[in-house]
């Protein structure tokens, strides 16, 4: 099964307006399978959420984390159960904080890398110089709050370029929820899991193997048949509330490689088959799903990179 995750959420423990209990209630009503608690620079919500989930036998799962909110960029951490000090952050060596968080077992990622920083809000844009792109685990390529072209498109392109260079980076997205905001038609993160699976382990597996999806509704799923030298792409429904698709609007599969972009029509009923020859036997493929046309405004889903 695919699990819908909301991976960027704040509560009244930092600058959000929902208490931890209200956040859980809000996300459950939107049929979220699991969420991350990522308050700014505190883990004080963790205990409250654990207690609430146990007391109420809630079906939703929590991924415990934090958003390191520094002077030079925001760093999302999942599976972070212990506060790691960041105050000595060095703009030239973010790897030191990445490593310190990873040592505690956390998955580490760059949040909204191209957001507006100074003079609007210092720290929101990632201004640190990364020298080692193996030193962190993922990039938040879509932050639903942020402007599409100036911020999110740049985040997506940055991730694509790094992956095409061979870096093992996963991607996520998030609402950056600070209140009970409408989540319909916004991107959510999806991973593979099982009904009773441990969400922290499943997320770790997904990120370590770069098996995350983001989508406003349906997922783009690829099945590689090496013997036949082709890949079959299908569209899988997720039931995400608020997603509407007119049958008259065609879906398009787009696959980016180092050499270019291949585009094909695809539909819910008719999968798209792409041969490796058409892709010029490129080793890294980046599939995306659009509707109407392949402008970023009509991007529906990003699928995991395919490494042949």
């Amino acid at each position: 099964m695919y699990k819908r995750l909301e991976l960027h959420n704040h509560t009244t423990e930092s600058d959000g307006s929902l208490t931890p209990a209200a956040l859980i209630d809000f996300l459950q009503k939107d049929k979220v399978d699991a969420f991350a608690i990522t308050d700014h620079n505190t883990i004080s919500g963790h205990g409250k959420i654990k207690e609430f989930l146990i007391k109420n036998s809630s079906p939703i799962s929590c991924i415990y984390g934090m958003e390191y909110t520094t002077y030079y960029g925001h760093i999302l951490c999942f599976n972070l159960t212990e506060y790691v000090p960041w105050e000595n952050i060095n703009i030239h060596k973010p790897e030191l904080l990445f490593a310190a968080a990873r040592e505690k077992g956390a998955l580490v990622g760059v949040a909204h890398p191209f957001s507006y920083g100074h003079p609007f809000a210092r720290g929101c844009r990632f201004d640190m110089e990364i020298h080692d792109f193996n030193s962190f685990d993922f990039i938040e390529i879509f932050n639903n709050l942020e402007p599409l072209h100036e911020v999110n498109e740049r985040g997506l392109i940055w991730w694509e370029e790094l992956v095409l260079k061979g870096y093992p980076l996963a991607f996520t997205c998030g609402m950056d929820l600070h209140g009970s905001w409408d989540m319909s038609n916004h991107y959510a993160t999806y991973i593979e899991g099982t009904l009773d699976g441990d969400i922290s382990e499943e997320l770790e597996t997904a990120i370590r193997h770069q098996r995350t999806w983001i989508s406003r509704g349906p997922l783009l799923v690829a099945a590689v048949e090496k013997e036949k030298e082709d890949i079959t792409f299908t569209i899988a429904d997720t039931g995400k509330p608020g997603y509407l698709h007119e049958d008259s609007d065609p879906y398009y599969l787009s696959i980016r490689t180092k050499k270019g972009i291949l585009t094909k029509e695809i539909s819910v009923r008719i999968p798209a088959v792409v041969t490796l020859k058409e892709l010029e036997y490129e080793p890294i493929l980046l599939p995306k799903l659009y509707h109407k046309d392949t402008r970023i405004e009509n991007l529906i889903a990003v699928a995991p990179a395919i490494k042949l």
Partner: protein
Amino acid sequence: MKTIYTAGGILNKGFVGQISYTVCLDKEYHEMDIAFTFDKQHYTDITEELKAELTAACEGEYETEIATEEQINSAIAGMKTEIHTIATMNDNFIGGIHKQLTERHMHYSTEYTSEGCLPQESLHGVIRLTLVVFNVILDDTHYEVTLSVNEEERGGLHV
């Protein structure tokens, strides 16, 4: 509550970094309040100089345009001095308050702990308060920190 430490200072426009205060508690306490205040959070005057600075940042760093006077004024009105607080006790994190407040309390008692803070069974040893200064938009920005404790066994002052 007994105030055992008060300190303050003045920040210059543009300062980024942290300022720490360390207090050694003389004995074990059951209630503690760390208060922090600062002034000049927002611009009171939107000057032509500010508008020019913002427009230059948009066109330069962000490769974007702010088209109208209204957008410029709105963006400047949203700019702020941003200072948050982090506290440790004996080098262990006991709380961080990241809210856009000019007055805040990190309060610890047997019955109540402020949002952002971790409940503590007892308060003893070395308390370190760190101001993390993200942005100061105006010169002569004043701030003050106060640490108070309660010797009573049970404390419950909700701040």
